[in-house]
């Protein structure tokens, strides 16, 4: 491979960036073929398109749940954050996610699956509407879920553009010049993000949930295997030792103490990060994946192996980010403003320390992690719009309105193109915002999105385990969560942090009144949502006895 790359460089037929680009394009082609094959297995009904007919077994469920939860955030965000703040990021999000994610799969996911299969739910709104006897739940929940999904999708859009640009640097020096040598000639983010979005849209549109689950599984394997390969190659190059152990020992030697300890990290902040992974309990795209399970026992493998897989992906990325904090590993300017450059750390090191062919494969691996989350998010957007808005409100309006279907227009089945149009609209909005916010930290954007979903955790928990929850309480909880989240998001400069008296932009954090304890906004969000939910539920009518009997077998 080295020889091929060397030959390519000498003949200048293909630059290193061009070789990486061709491999990325080949990978995209492979995904499209996979989506096409999934189409041949697709049964022509909505249930198969949205839930793969409840046919997903333990292994595919493990891979699709893991691939969906591990985003650009896990690879690009973790290495970038470790470069900025050091080893603390692993405890803040990786090991704690091993506890909390599996707990959510165990106590929330299995119940959602059970009720979903029994009562025919497809989306969260379906579940809450049925559980609370409230036909209007969609009007409260749907806009909030969309609002929170957009920053999540944004993270993927931004990361994919950044990665493609860094890894194709040198491919088109005349077309795409850049003032930074590390990015000169690379495919610009607006183009890279666009192509990634289009490829994901294509296989989601054609393959549905089955295609998405297959692509997720394939892409998860790709990014796990290539992640380990990346780690090995970068460790050997950075450390320069004879073997992996001595190279790792060399690489850590020059890293500042601030990055090998947590001396600059707030302990109270570390504690409150514990609440962030609760968000998996309310991700709409994960909800949909839970419903695809063949049986309850299919959840056991994901519950057991999810924490181990998190370790396999996060440890190499965090170590690479920590090593990058040593002087001289990255361009000098990046150490002056690390937050600005943190998204580019992993792709820069891949470009610099691997051959173009290996680099291209690793680029595909990073993009696999990004795309394996985007696909589920795109599919769930379409499912939610079709189920919760189109079927519930628009089609009902058409069937009762004089301008609705007539004998001349008998076809009133929910049109797939309506769902696809909605997906396209949301993706277009996310794409434009992603280009506009291109310098933003993927990590910080994701944390805001996770905080909002975590704010809905008390609601899903209460719906499954508390008979006293009322529709009024649930609606009040959703409004409270949206209001508190929106307030803090606005205060934080829309996730960009606040500028202090020295003119330096810092992350937005709260202090516990009367103390120096820093906490995340997710703490007051969850607290106020819970209090409001309990109070309003105690004052408003409960669901009917028949409904409660459906969900609570023991009075």
């Amino acid at each position: 491979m080295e020889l091929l790359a060397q030959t390519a460089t000498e003949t200048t037929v293909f630059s290193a960036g061009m070789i990486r680009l061709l491999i990325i394009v080949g990978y995209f082609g492979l995904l499209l073929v996979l989506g096409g094959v999934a189409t041949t297995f697709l049964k022509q009904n909505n249930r198969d398109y949205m839930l793969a007919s409840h046919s997903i077994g333990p292994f595919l469920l493990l891979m699709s749940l893991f691939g969906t939860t591990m985003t650009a955030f896990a690879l690009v965000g973790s290495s970038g954050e470790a470069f900025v703040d050091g080893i603390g990021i692993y405890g803040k999000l990786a090991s704690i996610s091993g506890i909390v994610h599996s707990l959510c799969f165990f106590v929330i996911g299995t119940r959602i699956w059970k009720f979903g299969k029994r009562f025919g739910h497809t989306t969260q709104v379906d579940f809450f509407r049925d559980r609370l006897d409230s036909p209007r739940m969609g009007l409260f929940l749907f806009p909030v879920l969309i609002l929170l999904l957009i920053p999540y999708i944004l993270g993927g859009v931004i990361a994919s553009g950044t990665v493609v640009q860094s890894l194709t640097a040198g491919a088109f020096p005349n077309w795409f010049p850049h003032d930074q040598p590390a990015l000169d000639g690379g495919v610009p983010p607006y183009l890279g993000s666009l192509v990634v979005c289009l490829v994901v849209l294509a296989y989601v549109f054609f393959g549905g949930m089955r295609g998405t689950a297959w692509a997720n599984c394939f892409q998860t394997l790709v990014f796990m295997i290539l992640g380990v390969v990346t780690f090995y190659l970068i460790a050997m190059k950075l450390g320069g030792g004879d073997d992996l152990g001595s190279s790792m020992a060399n690489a850590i030697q020059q890293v500042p103490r601030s990055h090998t300890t947590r001396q600059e990290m707030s302990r109270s902040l570390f504690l409150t990060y514990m609440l962030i992974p609760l968000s998996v309990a309310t991700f709409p795209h994960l909800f949909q994946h839970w419903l695809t399970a063949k049986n309850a026992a299919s959840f056991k493998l994901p519950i057991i192996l999810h924490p181990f897989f998190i370790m396999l992906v996060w440890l190499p990325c965090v170590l690479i980010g920590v090593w990058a904090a040593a002087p001289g590993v990255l361009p000098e300017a990046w150490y002056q403003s690390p937050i600005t450059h943190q998204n580019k750390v992993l792709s820069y090191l891949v470009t610099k320390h691997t051959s173009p062919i290996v680099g291209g494969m690793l680029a595909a691996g990073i993009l696999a992690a990004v795309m394996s989350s985007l696909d589920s998010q795109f599919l769930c957007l379409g499912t939610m719009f079709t189920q919760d808005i189109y079927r519930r409100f628009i089609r009902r309006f058409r069937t009762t309105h004089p301008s609705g279907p007539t004998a001349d227009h008998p076809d009133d089945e929910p049109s797939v193109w309506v769902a696809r149009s909605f997906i396209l609209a949301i993706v277009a909005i996310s794409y434009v915002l992603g280009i506009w916010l291109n310098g933003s930290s993927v990590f910080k954007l994701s944390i805001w999105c996770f905080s909002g979903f975590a704010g809905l955790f008390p609601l899903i928990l209460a719906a499954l385990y508390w008979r006293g929850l009322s529709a009024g309480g649930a609606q009040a909880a959703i409004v409270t969560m949206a209001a508190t989240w929106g307030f803090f998001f606005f205060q934080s400069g829309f996730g960009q942090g606040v500028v202090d008296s020295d003119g330096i932009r810092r992350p937005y954090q709260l202090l516990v009144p009367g103390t120096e304890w820093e906490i995340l906004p997710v703490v007051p969000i969850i607290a106020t949502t819970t209090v409001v939910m309990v109070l309003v539920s105690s004052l408003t009518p409960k669901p009917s006895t028949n409904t409660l009997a459906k969900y609570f077998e023991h009075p």
Partner: protein
Amino acid sequence: MNKGLWLAVAGLLILHHDFWLWDNDYLVAGVLPIGLAYHVGLSLVITLTWAVLTLKCWPADLTQE
């Protein structure tokens, strides 16, 4: 919900907050900062704990589904 499940999760959450290693820069085997090595070890303990919990605390009503 099974008490064993919640006790195990509470134990893991306590172990997760390793404030005693906060400023320690010792390198395990000369390669891994101890604050990171501890959490990697904890990830393995978490995996084993979930394996035991799915065997011992799996809800009876889900076994029939």
